[in-house]
């Protein structure tokens, strides 16, 4: 394949990675932004979402789309409820102390991992995509008769991957609208700005925290449901999304939602392109290096605000 079509393929694969990543990182960013909690167990919400998606799709017979839709509805809900419960049972009792919440969420990470291992076993589980047509992509080439379209061998994407990109974009827009346009979003933003004063205006900060922690985990789970038809579910799969989410959130600016999306696109696309032309390991090395550079030269992140 020539360079042009090859690059297009890498960009599309990168966009799929970026879509999943932006959902997962958005959850992490939201939780940090509103609650100032660094949730180390965030990757396990992703893992639980993936494993639950496999389990739910296994429960129903018939067309794979039925199971998939059911998984997309239930898995984020279950994971979100579990997260909200652990906020009530653990984080709230630590008064959201920054150091102790990190240790506590490390504990939650292992509990989630080991419970999954003991319940569902160590195997990687595939989920059948609801639809999966291969779509050949055209490329423009200059011949004697001028510019012509043709279909290079190997340049194709599946309809499911295009769906992932569109679904992630739609979910991100929906979150943005909820946060900026609804009363629930207003309560969240007021709590983020000044939680004590928020209480003095009747905002039940404890409930807001539980809901935000639940939504954060549900977003990771939703990303995982979208990814399991491409990548198998496994009890140790939470590590990479956690690392990449942290990278994205640090580069984008802690708590900045537009920054998170931009950084997810940056990391996702560079990951796709570098993985295709060089190696996936190099992609991770460069992403990590980028974090170091951002921390040195712009510690608040691309769109973050400097602490005053």
């Amino acid at each position, binding site marked *: 394949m020539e360079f042009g079509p090859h690059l297009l393929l890498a960009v599309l694969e990168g966009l799929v990675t970026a879509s999943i990543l932006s959902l997962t990182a958005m959850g992490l960013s939201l939780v940090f932004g509103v609650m100032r909690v660094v949730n180390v167990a965030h990757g396990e919400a992703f893992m639980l979402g993936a494993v639950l998606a496999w389990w739910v799709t296994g429960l129903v017979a018939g067309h794979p789309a039925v199971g998939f839709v059911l998984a997309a509805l239930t898995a984020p809900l279950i994971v979100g409820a579990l997260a909200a419960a652990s906020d009530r049972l653990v984080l709230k009792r630590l008064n959201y102390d920054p150091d102790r919440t990190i240790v506590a969420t490390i504990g939650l990470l292992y509990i989630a991992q080991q419970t999954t291992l003991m319940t569902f076993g160590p195997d990687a589980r595939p989920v059948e995509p609801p639809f999966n047509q291969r779509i050949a992509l055209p490329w423009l080439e200059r011949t004697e008769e001028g510019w012509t379209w043709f279909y290079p061998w190997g340049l194709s994407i599946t309809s499911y991957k295009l769906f992932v990109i569109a679904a992630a974009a739609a979910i991100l827009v929906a979150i943005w609208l909820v946060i900026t346009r609804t009363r629930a979003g207003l309560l969240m*933003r007021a709590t983020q*700005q*000044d939680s004590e*004063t*928020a209480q*003095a*205006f*009747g905002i039940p*900060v404890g409930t807001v925290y539980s809901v935000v922690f639940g939504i954060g985990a549900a977003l990771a789970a939703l990303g995982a449901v979208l990814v399991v038809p491409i990548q198998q579910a496994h009890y140790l799969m939470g590590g990479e999304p956690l690392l990449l989410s942290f990278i994205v959130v640090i580069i984008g600016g802690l708590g900045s939602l537009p920054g998170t999306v931009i950084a997810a696109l940056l990391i996702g696309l560079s990951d796709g392109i570098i993985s295709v032309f060089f190696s996936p390991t190099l992609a991770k090395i460069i992403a990590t290096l980028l974090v170091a550079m951002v921390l040195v030269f712009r510690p608040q992140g691309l769109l973050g605000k400097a602490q005053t």
Partner: protein
Amino acid sequence: MLEATSLRAGYGPVEVLHDVSLTARAGEITCLLGRNGAGKTSTLKALMGLLPLTSGTVTLDGEALHDLPAHEIPKRGIGYVPQGRRLFKELTVAETIEVGLMTRGEGRATREWVLDLFPRLRERLNQQAGTLSGGEQQMLATARALCLRPKVLLLDEPTEGLQPSMIELIRDVTVKMRDEGYAILLVEQRMDAILALADRAVFLETGRSVETADAARLHADPDLLHHRLGV
């Protein structure tokens, strides 16, 4: 009428209020006075439930507030203008007012009433609170509290750091609210403001309420203020 008796409260193991009692009556401005560190701001926070009480009672028109969770207390009708204004900095003026209105389910009529009190805010509805001038921020903090249509208004040094014309405006609004029948509890440091505004004064000393005096006595005995607050 807001009534607090024998409040004890503190930050963790450090007790800052040892024995504070006070009453804020409707249609009166009650000034809470004391030197720095006497516990004025802590008293207001304790009334709002933001500082956990170890003992003592707070009642509003006979209803006990001290065992309610903090976010339920404003819903009973207490508007709070905290020290340093404590605005939601990235929210716009319109959104801040919306937060105030949501507290007690107030609607358009209250919004118009508040914006008529502070016409400057109407011109800045889409501006972020953190970018307003100091005086405008104080107007917004006051407006946010008035959006509750509260029975009691707690004001913590509302004129601190403002230019004279703004001080005048905030003071006018305070008097207007008093005349409309609100109970106002005001923390104030400036002698002239105290003498001009106070219908009653409660003096705090190291976390205890030591004396209460009415306006007549404050005017008749100027040494009282100097003795209690003297620098």
